[in-house]
């Protein structure tokens, strides 16, 4: 009987102790505001640096002469599991050899279908495309998510072959 009473009070005390241990943890963080980990996103946009390998969206690299390396071989189109890349090619006269040659007319990229799996980048034989670090993809009109990656008037870099 007395044992039961002692156990009853012991139970209460251990219960209180476990509760206080928990409160100590949260209390520690309350009184140490330096441990706050919040990043205030739009404010820190200037300093926010994504990692190099971050897969934001596919971009076609252009140099300062508005030239890119894409030969229009459509390896990326085949590699893509979701059909988010469409290469519309055209025949073009090569100025050097004056023979007709395949080139891209439009490199269409459907961002809305992309799963960012990186397979197109791996498939590209000429390293023409790359994943950019941009991550702010939200738009009000979904048609804006269909992008043409080659810039107007751009042409293939000299010396790039399939």
């Amino acid at each position: 009987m007395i044992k039961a009473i002692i156990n009853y009070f012991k139970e209460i005390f251990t219960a209180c102790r476990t509760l206080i241990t928990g409160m100590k943890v949260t209390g520690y963080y309350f009184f140490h505001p330096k441990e706050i980990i919040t990043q205030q996103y739009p404010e820190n946009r200037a300093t926010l640096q994504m990692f190099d390998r971050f897969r934001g969206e596919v971009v076609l690299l252009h140099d300062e002469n508005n030239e890119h390396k894409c030969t229009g071989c459509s390896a990326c189109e085949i590699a893509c599991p979701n059909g988010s890349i469409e290469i519309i090619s055209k025949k073009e006269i090569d100025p050097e050899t004056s023979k007709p040659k395949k080139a891209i007319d439009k490199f269409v990229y459907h961002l809305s279908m992309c799963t960012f799996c990186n397979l197109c980048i791996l498939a590209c034989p000429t390293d023409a495309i790359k994943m950019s670090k941009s991550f702010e993809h939200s738009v009000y009109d979904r048609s804006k998510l269909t992008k043409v990656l080659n810039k107007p008037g751009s042409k293939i870099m000299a010396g790039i072959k399939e």
Partner: protein
Amino acid sequence: MNFNIYDFTEFIISIDNWLKQLLSPGLAKITGMALIGVTFLLFVTLLGLSIVYIERKVCAFFQQRLGPMRVGFWGTAQTIADIIKLIFKEPLATKNSDKFLFNLAAFIVLISPFMVIAVVPFAKGLHALDFDIGLFYVTAVSSLGVTGILLAGWSSNNKYSLIGAMRSGAQIISYELSIGLSLLAIVILTGSLQLSVIVESQRDGWWIFKGNIPAIVAFIIFIIASTAESNRGPFDLAEAESELTAGFHTEYSGIKFAFFFLAEYVNLFIIAAIGATVFFGGWMPLHIGNFTFFNEAMDIIPPIIWFFAKVAALIFLLMWFKWTFPRLRIDQLLQLEWKYLLPLSILNLVLMTIVSLTGWHL
């Protein structure tokens, strides 16, 4: 009109006299009542807004976050923005619900906090009512709030709401006992239920210090039971969002939801206010026995600041509970009350009687 921050009695009387000079006696009384009503309405609204902001900030700091930061400096205008949003939201009602009771419930939950807040002594002479049944009135009126919750749950025509309301009903009715008994422990010492007398009796030290061990136990029981009665975590079973989505107020939206929200936070304030008044001397500054110098130094701080500081400390404690502990299950909740708190508070009451009779308290 003489305004004294240490004693509001003359200030209130002078307002009363001024009204009586201007108006006929009947009209003066009505104007006085309206004045008090409007003051409390404003006070409760401000209170709701500020406590919601404080809660969000405190919770954020417990969780290593910053909390609202965008609207106003450090997010201070966030709750105002929220209220504006809630006012403009469409008030929805479920099909086949009892619309009349559904709308009424939101108001009924607000009745009891308004009625209780009338007796809270904010500072010397600053209270709307000073009953000789003070504490009894508080416990009596605070039992009204459960009706609103039950009605809200039932009239929503939603099974989750109904379960939430049932839980909350069982919870509030059982925890009322412990609250009453733990407050009684102090009433034994003061010999009065009148809140102003209770505050005056702590002139030479607060009851939590003077009242020996039983006072501390009574305070612990009070704080646990009142957390449960106000449906706050870890006792927030009535709105347990992981089980019942939002419990009894699942179907409420817009301003009616805001009423439930407001009632919860005003209840939080009332609990802290009653706790501070009974155990921590209300507006009475910290006095230690006969240390005249120390006591006079403490008296420099106005009583109203003392009161709100104590209330803030208790509110912080309740928030600390909420943001640390997991939620109890309904049977454990009732077990805690009937198996632990109630026997303990009865035992504590007996102990307190012994302490009081033998004069072991200071």
